[in-house]
Protein backbone atom coordinates (compact mmCIF):
# COMPACT_ATOMS: atom_id res chain seq x y z
CA UNK A 1 0.00 0.00 0.00
CA UNK A 2 1.39 3.43 -0.88
CA UNK A 3 2.04 5.92 1.89
CA UNK A 4 -0.69 8.37 2.88
CA UNK A 5 1.50 11.41 2.24
CA UNK A 6 4.58 11.40 0.10
CA UNK A 7 6.75 14.45 -0.63
CA UNK A 8 9.35 14.12 -3.33
CA UNK A 9 12.02 16.81 -3.75
CA UNK A 10 9.70 19.66 -2.74
CA UNK A 11 11.30 23.10 -3.06
CA UNK A 12 9.89 26.52 -2.25
CA UNK A 13 11.79 29.62 -3.22
CA UNK A 14 10.93 33.17 -2.19
CA UNK A 15 13.03 35.42 -4.42
CA UNK A 16 16.60 34.48 -3.56
CA UNK A 17 15.68 32.50 -0.45
CA UNK A 18 15.37 28.74 -0.52
CA UNK A 19 12.78 28.24 2.20
CA UNK A 20 12.56 24.55 1.30
CA UNK A 21 15.04 22.68 -0.85
CA UNK A 22 14.48 19.17 -2.16
CA UNK A 23 12.58 17.97 0.87
CA UNK A 24 11.37 14.39 0.62
CA UNK A 25 9.43 12.62 3.31
CA UNK A 26 6.85 9.91 3.79
CA UNK A 27 3.99 9.68 6.27
CA UNK A 28 2.47 6.23 6.67
CA UNK A 29 -1.17 5.82 7.58
CA UNK A 30 -1.72 5.47 11.35
CA UNK A 31 1.57 7.08 12.38
CA UNK A 32 2.40 10.15 14.38
CA UNK A 33 5.21 11.86 12.48
CA UNK A 34 7.18 14.72 14.00
CA UNK A 35 8.64 17.44 11.80
CA UNK A 36 11.20 19.40 13.79
CA UNK A 37 13.91 21.94 13.23
CA UNK A 38 15.20 25.18 14.68
CA UNK A 39 13.35 28.45 14.10
CA UNK A 40 13.50 29.41 10.44
CA UNK A 41 14.16 25.87 9.26
CA UNK A 42 11.25 26.00 6.81
CA UNK A 43 8.73 23.86 8.71
CA UNK A 44 5.80 26.20 8.37
CA UNK A 45 6.62 26.89 4.71
CA UNK A 46 6.54 23.17 4.04
CA UNK A 47 3.24 23.00 5.86
CA UNK A 48 1.83 25.78 3.73
CA UNK A 49 2.94 24.02 0.56
CA UNK A 50 1.33 20.74 1.58
CA UNK A 51 -1.92 22.35 2.75
CA UNK A 52 -2.27 24.42 -0.42
CA UNK A 53 -1.57 27.89 0.95
CA UNK A 54 1.55 28.23 -1.26
CA UNK A 55 2.20 26.33 -4.45
CA UNK A 56 5.62 24.67 -4.23
CA UNK A 57 8.23 25.94 -6.70
CA UNK A 58 9.00 22.38 -7.72
CA UNK A 59 8.59 18.82 -6.55
CA UNK A 60 5.71 16.45 -6.05
CA UNK A 61 3.24 16.09 -3.18
CA UNK A 62 1.12 12.96 -3.28
CA UNK A 63 -1.73 12.52 -0.83
CA UNK A 64 -3.93 9.43 -0.78
CA UNK A 65 -3.05 8.70 -4.39
CA UNK A 66 -3.54 12.23 -5.75
CA UNK A 67 -0.92 14.73 -6.84
CA UNK A 68 -2.02 17.71 -4.75
CA UNK A 69 0.82 20.17 -5.36
CA UNK A 70 -0.76 23.49 -6.34
CA UNK A 71 -4.29 22.59 -5.21
CA UNK A 72 -6.29 25.30 -3.41
CA UNK A 73 -6.53 24.90 0.39
CA UNK A 74 -10.24 24.10 0.33
CA UNK A 75 -9.66 21.33 -2.20
CA UNK A 76 -6.81 19.85 -0.18
CA UNK A 77 -9.09 19.90 2.87
CA UNK A 78 -11.82 18.03 1.01
CA UNK A 79 -9.31 15.40 -0.02
CA UNK A 80 -8.85 14.68 3.70
CA UNK A 81 -5.91 16.78 4.83
CA UNK A 82 -6.57 19.33 7.60
CA UNK A 83 -4.23 21.74 9.35
CA UNK A 84 -4.01 24.13 12.27
CA UNK A 85 -2.10 27.40 12.38
CA UNK A 86 0.99 28.27 14.40
CA UNK A 87 -0.53 31.63 15.26
CA UNK A 88 -4.06 30.71 16.35
CA UNK A 89 -6.85 31.70 13.99
CA UNK A 90 -10.02 31.03 15.91
CA UNK A 91 -13.09 32.87 14.58
CA UNK A 92 -13.17 35.49 17.35
CA UNK A 93 -16.79 36.65 17.01
CA UNK A 94 -18.25 33.16 16.75
CA UNK A 95 -19.00 30.77 19.59
CA UNK A 96 -16.80 27.75 20.19
CA UNK A 97 -19.60 25.51 18.93
CA UNK A 98 -20.03 27.59 15.74
CA UNK A 99 -16.26 27.50 15.18
CA UNK A 100 -16.34 23.71 15.16
CA UNK A 101 -19.50 23.64 13.02
CA UNK A 102 -17.58 25.42 10.24
CA UNK A 103 -15.25 22.42 10.18
CA UNK A 104 -18.14 19.95 10.27
CA UNK A 105 -19.83 21.66 7.29
CA UNK A 106 -17.00 20.36 5.12
CA UNK A 107 -18.80 17.01 5.17
CA UNK A 108 -22.48 17.93 5.45
CA UNK A 109 -24.86 20.60 4.22
CA UNK A 110 -27.27 20.30 7.14
CA UNK A 111 -26.86 22.57 10.15
CA UNK A 112 -28.38 20.06 12.58
CA UNK A 113 -25.94 17.36 11.57
CA UNK A 114 -22.99 19.77 11.75
CA UNK A 115 -24.09 20.89 15.22
CA UNK A 116 -24.36 17.30 16.48
CA UNK A 117 -20.92 16.40 15.15
CA UNK A 118 -19.39 19.55 16.60
CA UNK A 119 -20.88 18.87 20.04
CA UNK A 120 -19.58 15.31 19.97
CA UNK A 121 -16.05 16.45 19.11
CA UNK A 122 -16.09 19.19 21.75
CA UNK A 123 -16.83 16.50 24.31
CA UNK A 124 -13.92 14.45 22.95
CA UNK A 125 -11.41 17.30 23.20
CA UNK A 126 -12.75 18.56 26.52
CA UNK A 127 -14.14 21.89 25.39
CA UNK A 128 -17.83 21.07 25.82
CA UNK A 129 -18.09 23.34 28.84
CA UNK A 130 -16.99 26.33 26.75
CA UNK A 131 -19.28 25.58 23.79
CA UNK A 132 -21.15 28.88 24.06
CA UNK A 133 -18.19 31.14 24.83
CA UNK A 134 -16.94 33.43 22.08
CA UNK A 135 -13.75 32.37 20.32
CA UNK A 136 -12.07 35.62 21.39
CA UNK A 137 -12.73 34.91 25.08
CA UNK A 138 -10.72 31.68 25.28
CA UNK A 139 -7.26 31.28 26.77
CA UNK A 140 -4.40 30.48 24.38
CA UNK A 141 -4.45 26.84 25.44
CA UNK A 142 -8.19 26.60 24.77
CA UNK A 143 -7.84 28.41 21.44
CA UNK A 144 -5.28 25.85 20.34
CA UNK A 145 -7.55 23.08 21.48
CA UNK A 146 -10.42 24.68 19.58
CA UNK A 147 -8.40 24.84 16.37
CA UNK A 148 -7.57 21.20 16.74
CA UNK A 149 -11.22 20.30 17.37
CA UNK A 150 -12.29 22.38 14.37
CA UNK A 151 -9.77 20.63 12.12
CA UNK A 152 -10.90 17.22 13.40
CA UNK A 153 -14.50 18.12 12.56
CA UNK A 154 -13.56 18.09 8.87
CA UNK A 155 -12.93 14.33 9.28
CA UNK A 156 -9.36 14.39 8.01
CA UNK A 157 -7.29 11.31 7.20
CA UNK A 158 -4.21 13.35 7.98
CA UNK A 159 -4.13 16.10 10.59
CA UNK A 160 -1.23 18.55 10.42
CA UNK A 161 -0.61 20.43 13.65
CA UNK A 162 1.60 23.51 13.50
CA UNK A 163 3.21 24.07 16.90
CA UNK A 164 0.16 23.23 18.99
CA UNK A 165 2.40 22.91 22.04
CA UNK A 166 4.03 26.32 21.80
CA UNK A 167 2.97 28.61 24.61
CA UNK A 168 1.56 25.81 26.76
CA UNK A 169 2.77 25.10 30.28
CA UNK A 170 4.13 21.60 31.09
CA UNK A 171 0.79 20.35 32.45
CA UNK A 172 -1.06 21.57 29.37
CA UNK A 173 1.58 19.97 27.14
CA UNK A 174 1.13 16.61 28.83
CA UNK A 175 -2.59 16.84 28.23
CA UNK A 176 -2.06 17.81 24.60
CA UNK A 177 0.15 14.75 24.14
CA UNK A 178 -2.61 12.55 25.55
CA UNK A 179 -5.11 14.14 23.18
CA UNK A 180 -2.89 13.67 20.12
CA UNK A 181 -2.47 9.99 20.97
CA UNK A 182 -6.25 9.69 21.34
CA UNK A 183 -6.71 11.28 17.91
CA UNK A 184 -4.33 8.78 16.34
CA UNK A 185 -6.16 5.94 18.10
CA UNK A 186 -9.41 7.12 16.50
CA UNK A 187 -7.77 6.50 13.14
CA UNK A 188 -6.37 9.87 12.11
CA UNK A 189 -2.75 10.10 11.04
CA UNK A 190 -0.90 13.04 12.60
CA UNK A 191 1.93 15.20 11.27
CA UNK A 192 3.28 17.34 14.07
CA UNK A 193 5.42 20.40 13.57
CA UNK A 194 7.36 21.63 16.61
CA UNK A 195 10.62 23.35 17.25
CA UNK A 196 10.82 22.06 20.81
CA UNK A 197 12.31 18.56 20.54
CA UNK A 198 11.26 17.28 23.95
CA UNK A 199 7.56 17.35 23.15
CA UNK A 200 7.87 15.58 19.81
CA UNK A 201 10.17 12.75 20.79
CA UNK A 202 7.93 10.85 23.23
CA UNK A 203 4.93 10.61 20.90
CA UNK A 204 6.39 10.38 17.41
CA UNK A 205 6.81 7.10 15.57
CA UNK A 206 9.04 8.80 13.07
CA UNK A 207 10.86 12.13 13.10
CA UNK A 208 12.01 14.32 10.22
CA UNK A 209 14.47 17.13 10.93
CA UNK A 210 14.74 20.26 8.80
CA UNK A 211 17.46 22.87 8.95
CA UNK A 212 17.85 25.86 6.63
CA UNK A 213 15.18 24.46 4.33
CA UNK A 214 16.75 21.02 3.88
CA UNK A 215 16.11 17.68 5.46
CA UNK A 216 19.15 16.84 7.56
CA UNK A 217 17.97 13.67 9.29
CA UNK A 218 15.06 11.30 9.72
CA UNK A 219 14.35 8.15 11.64
CA UNK A 220 12.93 6.89 14.93
CA UNK A 221 13.19 9.40 17.80
CA UNK A 222 15.94 7.60 19.72
CA UNK A 223 18.38 7.70 16.80
CA UNK A 224 17.47 11.30 15.97
CA UNK A 225 18.53 12.61 19.37
CA UNK A 226 22.02 11.19 18.83
CA UNK A 227 22.38 12.35 15.25
CA UNK A 228 25.41 14.67 15.02
CA UNK A 229 23.79 16.81 12.30
CA UNK A 230 20.74 17.37 14.46
CA UNK A 231 22.81 18.26 17.51
CA UNK A 232 24.85 20.69 15.46
CA UNK A 233 21.73 22.27 14.01
CA UNK A 234 20.20 22.86 17.41
CA UNK A 235 23.27 23.68 19.47
CA UNK A 236 25.70 25.06 16.90
CA UNK A 237 28.72 23.59 15.10
CA UNK A 238 30.82 23.88 18.25
CA UNK A 239 28.85 21.05 19.82
CA UNK A 240 29.06 18.69 16.84
CA UNK A 241 30.30 15.35 18.20
CA UNK A 242 33.86 14.53 17.06
CA UNK A 243 32.80 11.38 15.26
CA UNK A 244 31.31 13.19 12.23
CA UNK A 245 28.08 11.83 10.75
CA UNK A 246 27.07 11.84 7.13
CA UNK A 247 26.95 15.42 5.94
Amino acid sequence: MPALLELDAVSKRFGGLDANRDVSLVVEEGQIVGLIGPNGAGKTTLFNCVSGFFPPTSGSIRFAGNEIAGWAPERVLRAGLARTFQVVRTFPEMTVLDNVMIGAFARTNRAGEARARAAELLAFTGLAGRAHARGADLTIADKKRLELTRALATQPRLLMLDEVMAGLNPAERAQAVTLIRAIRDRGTTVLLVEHVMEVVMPISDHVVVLDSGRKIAEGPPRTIVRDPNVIAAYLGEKYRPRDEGTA
Partner: protein
Amino acid sequence: MNVDLRSRTGRWLVAAVALVALVLFPLFVGGGSWLNTAVLVLLYAGLAQAWNILGGFAGQVSLGNAAFFGIGAYTSTVLLDRWNVSPWLGMPVGAIVAAAFAVAVFFPFFRLGGHYFAIATIALAEILLILFTNWAFVRGARGITIPFVRGPDRRPTDSWAFLQFNESRVPYYYVVLGLAVLAVATAVVVERSKLGYYLRAIKNDQQAARSLGVPVLRYKLIAVAISAAVTAAFGTFYAQYLLFIDPETTMRLELSVLIALVAILGGVGTVVGPLLGALVLIPLSEVTRSQLAGSGNTLDLVLYGGLIMLIAAFQPNGLVAIGDRFRRRREAVRPAGDETERGEAPLVGAPGTRN
Protein backbone atom coordinates in the same frame (compact mmCIF):
# COMPACT_ATOMS: atom_id res chain seq x y z
CA MET B 1 -44.53 38.82 31.48
CA ASN B 2 -42.97 35.40 31.79
CA VAL B 3 -41.95 34.58 28.23
CA ASP B 4 -38.25 35.17 27.60
CA LEU B 5 -38.26 37.27 24.46
CA ARG B 6 -34.88 35.92 23.42
CA SER B 7 -35.97 32.29 23.49
CA ARG B 8 -37.15 30.65 20.29
CA THR B 9 -40.85 30.85 21.14
CA GLY B 10 -40.34 34.37 22.45
CA ARG B 11 -38.84 35.51 19.18
CA TRP B 12 -41.62 33.94 17.12
CA LEU B 13 -44.14 35.63 19.41
CA VAL B 14 -42.51 39.04 18.92
CA ALA B 15 -42.39 38.48 15.15
CA ALA B 16 -46.07 37.45 15.04
CA VAL B 17 -47.21 40.44 17.10
CA ALA B 18 -45.13 42.80 14.98
CA LEU B 19 -46.55 41.33 11.78
CA VAL B 20 -50.16 41.65 12.98
CA ALA B 21 -49.48 45.26 14.01
CA LEU B 22 -47.97 45.98 10.59
CA VAL B 23 -50.93 44.41 8.78
CA LEU B 24 -53.41 46.49 10.81
CA PHE B 25 -51.35 49.69 10.65
CA PRO B 26 -53.10 51.32 7.61
CA LEU B 27 -56.49 50.97 9.33
CA PHE B 28 -55.34 53.46 11.93
CA VAL B 29 -53.48 56.01 9.86
CA GLY B 30 -55.41 56.07 6.60
CA GLY B 31 -53.49 57.16 3.52
CA GLY B 32 -51.66 60.26 4.69
CA SER B 33 -48.02 61.06 5.19
CA TRP B 34 -47.68 58.44 7.92
CA LEU B 35 -48.48 55.79 5.37
CA ASN B 36 -45.79 57.20 3.11
CA THR B 37 -43.30 57.12 5.99
CA ALA B 38 -44.28 53.53 6.75
CA VAL B 39 -43.73 52.54 3.12
CA LEU B 40 -40.26 54.11 3.23
CA VAL B 41 -39.45 52.38 6.53
CA LEU B 42 -40.35 49.00 5.05
CA LEU B 43 -38.48 49.80 1.84
CA TYR B 44 -35.27 50.67 3.68
CA ALA B 45 -35.71 47.81 6.14
CA GLY B 46 -35.75 45.43 3.18
CA LEU B 47 -32.87 47.13 1.39
CA ALA B 48 -30.76 47.15 4.56
CA GLN B 49 -31.62 43.50 5.16
CA ALA B 50 -30.39 42.67 1.64
CA TRP B 51 -27.22 44.71 2.23
CA ASN B 52 -26.74 42.85 5.49
CA ILE B 53 -26.39 39.47 3.76
CA LEU B 54 -23.15 40.58 2.12
CA GLY B 55 -22.09 43.50 4.33
CA GLY B 56 -23.22 42.16 7.69
CA PHE B 57 -22.88 38.38 7.55
CA ALA B 58 -19.85 38.23 5.24
CA GLY B 59 -18.33 41.58 6.29
CA GLN B 60 -17.96 42.85 2.70
CA VAL B 61 -19.06 46.48 2.98
CA SER B 62 -20.71 47.65 -0.23
CA LEU B 63 -21.41 51.31 -0.83
CA GLY B 64 -22.83 50.65 -4.26
CA ASN B 65 -26.07 48.78 -3.64
CA ALA B 66 -27.97 51.54 -5.44
CA ALA B 67 -26.60 49.94 -8.62
CA PHE B 68 -28.72 46.83 -7.97
CA PHE B 69 -31.67 48.97 -6.95
CA GLY B 70 -31.40 50.91 -10.21
CA ILE B 71 -31.05 47.76 -12.30
CA GLY B 72 -34.24 46.40 -10.72
CA ALA B 73 -36.12 49.66 -11.29
CA TYR B 74 -34.91 50.04 -14.87
CA THR B 75 -35.37 46.41 -15.95
CA SER B 76 -39.05 46.26 -15.02
CA THR B 77 -39.75 49.82 -16.17
CA VAL B 78 -38.09 49.40 -19.57
CA LEU B 79 -39.97 46.12 -20.06
CA LEU B 80 -43.20 47.91 -19.17
CA ASP B 81 -42.44 51.03 -21.18
CA ARG B 82 -41.35 49.28 -24.38
CA TRP B 83 -43.22 45.97 -24.38
CA ASN B 84 -46.02 46.47 -21.87
CA VAL B 85 -44.72 43.66 -19.64
CA SER B 86 -46.31 43.62 -16.16
CA PRO B 87 -43.95 44.73 -13.36
CA TRP B 88 -44.83 41.50 -11.56
CA LEU B 89 -42.89 39.74 -14.30
CA GLY B 90 -40.37 42.56 -14.57
CA MET B 91 -39.54 42.21 -10.88
CA PRO B 92 -38.09 38.65 -11.03
CA VAL B 93 -36.43 39.43 -14.36
CA GLY B 94 -34.80 42.50 -12.78
CA ALA B 95 -33.71 40.39 -9.81
CA ILE B 96 -32.06 37.86 -12.10
CA VAL B 97 -30.37 40.56 -14.19
CA ALA B 98 -29.07 42.26 -11.03
CA ALA B 99 -27.78 38.96 -9.60
CA ALA B 100 -25.99 38.06 -12.84
CA PHE B 101 -24.54 41.56 -13.07
CA ALA B 102 -23.41 41.39 -9.43
CA VAL B 103 -21.65 38.06 -9.90
CA ALA B 104 -19.84 39.26 -13.04
CA VAL B 105 -18.70 42.57 -11.53
CA PHE B 106 -17.92 41.40 -8.00
CA PHE B 107 -15.84 38.47 -9.21
CA PRO B 108 -12.83 40.80 -9.66
CA PHE B 109 -13.95 43.11 -6.80
CA PHE B 110 -13.56 40.34 -4.25
CA ARG B 111 -9.83 40.34 -4.88
CA LEU B 112 -9.78 43.72 -3.15
CA GLY B 113 -9.60 43.93 0.62
CA GLY B 114 -11.29 46.24 3.12
CA HIS B 115 -11.56 49.88 2.08
CA TYR B 116 -10.49 49.20 -1.50
CA PHE B 117 -13.47 46.92 -1.93
CA ALA B 118 -15.82 49.61 -0.62
CA ILE B 119 -14.29 52.23 -2.94
CA ALA B 120 -14.73 49.93 -5.94
CA THR B 121 -18.42 49.51 -5.12
CA ILE B 122 -18.87 53.30 -4.95
CA ALA B 123 -17.24 53.60 -8.37
CA LEU B 124 -19.49 50.87 -9.74
CA ALA B 125 -22.72 52.68 -8.85
CA GLU B 126 -21.36 56.01 -10.06
CA ILE B 127 -20.31 54.55 -13.41
CA LEU B 128 -23.74 52.99 -13.82
CA LEU B 129 -25.35 56.33 -12.98
CA ILE B 130 -23.35 58.13 -15.68
CA LEU B 131 -23.97 55.34 -18.17
CA PHE B 132 -27.73 55.45 -17.67
CA THR B 133 -27.76 59.25 -17.76
CA ASN B 134 -26.31 59.12 -21.28
CA TRP B 135 -28.06 56.03 -22.60
CA ALA B 136 -30.80 56.93 -25.10
CA PHE B 137 -32.47 53.50 -24.96
CA VAL B 138 -33.47 54.13 -21.31
CA ARG B 139 -34.31 57.77 -22.12
CA GLY B 140 -31.16 59.12 -20.47
CA ALA B 141 -31.32 61.91 -17.91
CA ARG B 142 -34.99 62.65 -18.68
CA GLY B 143 -35.99 59.39 -17.05
CA ILE B 144 -39.02 57.24 -17.73
CA THR B 145 -42.55 58.16 -16.74
CA ILE B 146 -44.78 55.14 -16.21
CA PRO B 147 -48.17 55.85 -17.82
CA PHE B 148 -51.28 55.60 -15.67
CA VAL B 149 -53.50 52.58 -15.94
CA ARG B 150 -56.89 54.15 -16.75
CA GLY B 151 -60.38 52.92 -16.03
CA PRO B 152 -63.32 52.97 -18.47
CA ASP B 153 -63.95 56.60 -17.51
CA ARG B 154 -60.34 57.49 -18.55
CA ARG B 155 -59.41 58.28 -14.95
CA PRO B 156 -56.26 56.78 -13.35
CA THR B 157 -57.28 53.66 -11.49
CA ASP B 158 -55.89 50.83 -9.38
CA SER B 159 -54.46 47.78 -11.05
CA TRP B 160 -53.01 44.79 -9.20
CA ALA B 161 -52.05 43.27 -12.55
CA PHE B 162 -49.80 46.24 -13.32
CA LEU B 163 -48.77 47.03 -9.73
CA GLN B 164 -50.13 50.54 -9.82
CA PHE B 165 -52.51 52.15 -7.32
CA ASN B 166 -53.86 55.62 -7.99
CA GLU B 167 -57.07 55.71 -5.95
CA SER B 168 -55.66 54.55 -2.62
CA ARG B 169 -51.99 54.24 -1.69
CA VAL B 170 -52.72 51.50 0.85
CA PRO B 171 -52.09 48.56 -1.54
CA TYR B 172 -48.53 49.85 -2.04
CA TYR B 173 -48.04 49.48 1.68
CA TYR B 174 -49.09 45.83 1.56
CA VAL B 175 -46.89 45.12 -1.44
CA VAL B 176 -43.79 46.56 0.24
CA LEU B 177 -44.74 44.80 3.48
CA GLY B 178 -44.82 41.53 1.56
CA LEU B 179 -41.42 42.25 0.03
CA ALA B 180 -39.95 43.20 3.41
CA VAL B 181 -41.25 39.97 4.95
CA LEU B 182 -39.66 38.11 2.05
CA ALA B 183 -36.35 39.90 2.65
CA VAL B 184 -36.43 39.08 6.37
CA ALA B 185 -37.33 35.46 5.64
CA THR B 186 -34.40 35.26 3.22
CA ALA B 187 -32.05 36.65 5.86
CA VAL B 188 -33.34 34.22 8.49
CA VAL B 189 -32.92 31.23 6.18
CA VAL B 190 -29.42 32.39 5.20
CA GLU B 191 -28.44 33.01 8.81
CA ARG B 192 -29.34 29.50 9.92
CA SER B 193 -28.01 27.59 6.95
CA LYS B 194 -24.54 26.46 6.00
CA LEU B 195 -24.34 29.60 3.85
CA GLY B 196 -24.77 31.85 6.89
CA TYR B 197 -22.17 29.96 8.92
CA TYR B 198 -19.69 30.09 6.05
CA LEU B 199 -20.29 33.83 5.53
CA ARG B 200 -19.62 34.53 9.20
CA ALA B 201 -16.46 32.43 9.04
CA ILE B 202 -15.35 34.48 6.01
CA LYS B 203 -16.00 37.70 7.93
CA ASN B 204 -14.00 36.44 10.93
CA ASP B 205 -10.91 35.05 9.17
CA GLN B 206 -10.70 34.16 5.50
CA GLN B 207 -7.48 32.13 5.74
CA ALA B 208 -8.84 30.03 8.58
CA ALA B 209 -12.07 29.57 6.65
CA ARG B 210 -10.16 28.29 3.62
CA SER B 211 -8.19 25.91 5.81
CA LEU B 212 -11.51 24.38 6.88
CA GLY B 213 -12.69 23.86 3.32
CA VAL B 214 -14.73 27.03 2.79
CA PRO B 215 -14.63 28.06 -0.90
CA VAL B 216 -14.41 31.74 0.03
CA LEU B 217 -14.90 33.33 -3.39
CA ARG B 218 -17.85 31.10 -4.33
CA TYR B 219 -19.69 31.88 -1.09
CA LYS B 220 -19.10 35.63 -1.41
CA LEU B 221 -20.53 35.47 -4.93
CA ILE B 222 -23.60 33.59 -3.69
CA ALA B 223 -24.07 36.26 -1.01
CA VAL B 224 -23.80 39.17 -3.43
CA ALA B 225 -26.17 37.46 -5.89
CA ILE B 226 -28.85 37.09 -3.20
CA SER B 227 -28.23 40.62 -1.95
CA ALA B 228 -28.50 42.06 -5.46
CA ALA B 229 -31.65 40.11 -6.34
CA VAL B 230 -33.53 41.24 -3.22
CA THR B 231 -32.36 44.85 -3.69
CA ALA B 232 -33.52 44.83 -7.31
CA ALA B 233 -37.01 43.62 -6.34
CA PHE B 234 -37.38 46.70 -4.14
CA GLY B 235 -36.17 48.79 -7.09
CA THR B 236 -39.12 47.60 -9.16
CA PHE B 237 -41.46 48.41 -6.30
CA TYR B 238 -40.00 51.89 -5.95
CA ALA B 239 -40.43 52.61 -9.67
CA GLN B 240 -44.10 51.63 -9.43
CA TYR B 241 -44.54 53.64 -6.25
CA LEU B 242 -43.22 56.85 -7.81
CA LEU B 243 -44.37 56.03 -11.38
CA PHE B 244 -41.27 57.85 -12.51
CA ILE B 245 -37.60 56.90 -12.49
CA ASP B 246 -34.41 58.57 -13.58
CA PRO B 247 -30.80 57.68 -12.86
CA GLU B 248 -30.56 60.16 -9.97
CA THR B 249 -33.53 58.83 -8.00
CA THR B 250 -32.51 55.19 -8.34
CA MET B 251 -28.71 55.09 -8.36
CA ARG B 252 -27.31 58.11 -6.54
CA LEU B 253 -24.58 57.67 -3.97
CA GLU B 254 -26.71 58.90 -1.04
CA LEU B 255 -29.04 55.98 -1.60
CA SER B 256 -26.17 53.47 -1.36
CA VAL B 257 -24.86 55.19 1.75
CA LEU B 258 -28.28 55.32 3.40
CA ILE B 259 -28.83 51.59 2.79
CA ALA B 260 -25.52 50.79 4.48
CA LEU B 261 -26.12 53.35 7.23
CA VAL B 262 -29.50 51.89 8.18
CA ALA B 263 -27.95 48.43 8.54
CA ILE B 264 -24.82 49.63 10.33
CA LEU B 265 -26.59 51.87 12.83
CA GLY B 266 -29.21 49.22 13.44
CA GLY B 267 -26.63 46.52 14.06
CA VAL B 268 -24.54 44.67 11.52
CA GLY B 269 -24.82 40.93 11.05
CA THR B 270 -28.12 40.43 12.84
CA VAL B 271 -31.59 40.06 11.34
CA VAL B 272 -33.16 42.52 13.79
CA GLY B 273 -30.53 45.24 13.29
CA PRO B 274 -31.56 46.51 9.84
CA LEU B 275 -35.23 46.52 10.87
CA LEU B 276 -34.46 48.56 13.95
CA GLY B 277 -32.21 50.89 11.97
CA ALA B 278 -34.94 51.60 9.44
CA LEU B 279 -37.55 52.07 12.16
CA VAL B 280 -35.44 54.75 13.84
CA LEU B 281 -33.59 56.47 11.00
CA ILE B 282 -36.25 56.80 8.31
CA PRO B 283 -38.99 58.44 10.43
CA LEU B 284 -36.27 60.62 11.94
CA SER B 285 -35.19 61.84 8.53
CA GLU B 286 -38.82 62.34 7.45
CA VAL B 287 -39.78 64.22 10.60
CA THR B 288 -36.71 66.45 10.66
CA ARG B 289 -37.27 67.20 6.99
CA SER B 290 -40.98 68.01 7.27
CA GLN B 291 -40.62 70.01 10.47
CA LEU B 292 -37.43 71.91 9.83
CA ALA B 293 -36.51 71.91 6.15
CA GLY B 294 -39.29 74.29 5.10
CA SER B 295 -37.49 77.29 6.55
CA GLY B 296 -34.84 76.98 3.86
CA ASN B 297 -31.94 76.40 6.21
CA THR B 298 -30.45 72.95 6.55
CA LEU B 299 -31.26 72.51 10.22
CA ASP B 300 -32.91 69.15 9.47
CA LEU B 301 -29.69 67.74 8.08
CA VAL B 302 -27.69 69.10 11.02
CA LEU B 303 -30.02 67.42 13.50
CA TYR B 304 -30.16 64.20 11.49
CA GLY B 305 -26.38 64.06 11.15
CA GLY B 306 -25.94 64.86 14.83
CA LEU B 307 -28.17 61.97 15.86
CA ILE B 308 -26.25 59.58 13.63
CA MET B 309 -23.03 60.75 15.26
CA LEU B 310 -24.49 60.18 18.71
CA ILE B 311 -25.53 56.63 17.87
CA ALA B 312 -22.13 55.90 16.32
CA ALA B 313 -20.30 57.30 19.34
CA PHE B 314 -22.31 55.67 22.12
CA GLN B 315 -23.64 52.57 20.45
CA PRO B 316 -20.91 51.47 18.02
CA ASN B 317 -22.40 47.98 17.72
CA GLY B 318 -25.70 49.40 16.59
CA LEU B 319 -29.09 49.86 18.16
CA VAL B 320 -29.57 46.11 18.71
CA ALA B 321 -26.73 46.21 21.23
CA ILE B 322 -28.73 48.49 23.53
CA GLY B 323 -30.68 45.44 24.67
CA ASP B 324 -27.42 43.60 25.40
CA ARG B 325 -26.22 46.50 27.48
CA PHE B 326 -29.25 46.37 29.79
CA ARG B 327 -29.08 42.59 29.95
CA ARG B 328 -25.44 42.70 31.01
CA ARG B 329 -26.29 45.15 33.74
CA ARG B 330 -29.02 42.83 35.01
CA GLU B 331 -26.73 39.83 34.94
CA ALA B 332 -24.02 41.72 36.78
CA VAL B 333 -26.47 42.24 39.61
CA ARG B 334 -27.47 38.58 39.72
CA PRO B 335 -25.23 36.51 42.05
CA ALA B 336 -22.46 34.58 40.30
CA GLY B 337 -22.75 30.83 40.00
CA ASP B 338 -23.95 30.17 36.47
CA GLU B 339 -20.36 29.85 35.36
CA THR B 340 -19.55 26.79 37.42
CA GLU B 341 -21.53 24.35 35.29
CA ARG B 342 -18.62 24.08 32.88
CA GLY B 343 -17.91 20.53 31.77
CA GLU B 344 -14.91 18.60 32.96
CA ALA B 345 -12.08 18.26 30.51
CA PRO B 346 -11.58 14.52 30.08
CA LEU B 347 -8.42 14.57 28.00
CA VAL B 348 -6.77 17.93 28.11
CA GLY B 349 -6.43 20.14 31.14
CA ALA B 350 -8.88 22.50 32.73
CA PRO B 351 -10.43 24.89 30.26
CA GLY B 352 -9.36 28.48 30.60
CA THR B 353 -10.98 30.40 33.36
CA ARG B 354 -10.95 33.77 31.71
CA ASN B 355 -14.25 35.11 30.64
